[in-house]
């Protein structure tokens, strides 16, 4: 179900990844103004949070009002990644 209407657009102050993980533990987050150090590495000085939630989709829905302003919206999980990876065959 699309729950976009249930959210007021918000944007956090610039936060480090450690601060984001502490504020939104075990959640998916959408980030903008990602002050990334090197393109190929997941290390940045700070970013602003514009969406968060327990499902992959929830932060995307909250981020929609910001899409006109931000071309780049990061999507990451703040918890520990412990995925079993299945095998794919086309």
């Amino acid at each position: 179900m699309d729950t976009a209407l249930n959210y007021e657009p918000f944007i956090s102050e610039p936060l480090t990844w450690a601060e984001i993980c502490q504020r939104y533990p075990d959640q998916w987050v959408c980030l903008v103004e990602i002050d990334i150090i090197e393109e190929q590495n997941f290390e940045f000085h700070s970013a602003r949070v514009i969406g968060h939630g327990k499902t992959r989709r929830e932060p995307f829905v909250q981020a929609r009002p910001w899409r006109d302003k931000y071309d780049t919206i990061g999507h990451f999980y703040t918890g520990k990644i412990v995925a079993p990876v299945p095998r794919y065959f086309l």
Partner: protein
Amino acid sequence: MKVTRFDPTGDLIIVIGYLWGPGGREKRPLSLAIDTGSAETVITPDVVDELGYSPRDGEAITTVRAAIGKEHGYTLRAARFVAFGFAVPDFRVHVFDLASGWGIDGLIGLSYLRQFNYEIRSEEGRILVQRTAP
């Protein structure tokens, strides 16, 4: 040669990748697992939907045989994909759902990796990547 770092203590090798929307304006930095056992590079439907793609843009419907049975996805030509610092335009991805609790938005499979020589240094948490394809 470019160097990509990852957390060597993690259960999976996770790197940052970038997927562009159909107009080439919007992009999404994502967490992706490197999976040399996957033929395809996989991106979840939530990501491609939000970028403005739809199943109508798909090339082919696919069937995945997983432990719990058959599940369907589709292939899509993404405007641009970047990982390890190397960009590939018009790149085919396999759109397929992964459990939200896994904490990743997709897999980097051999469809992307085969364009490079790469060396995974697990203890150091580094991947050395050199493009070989033109």
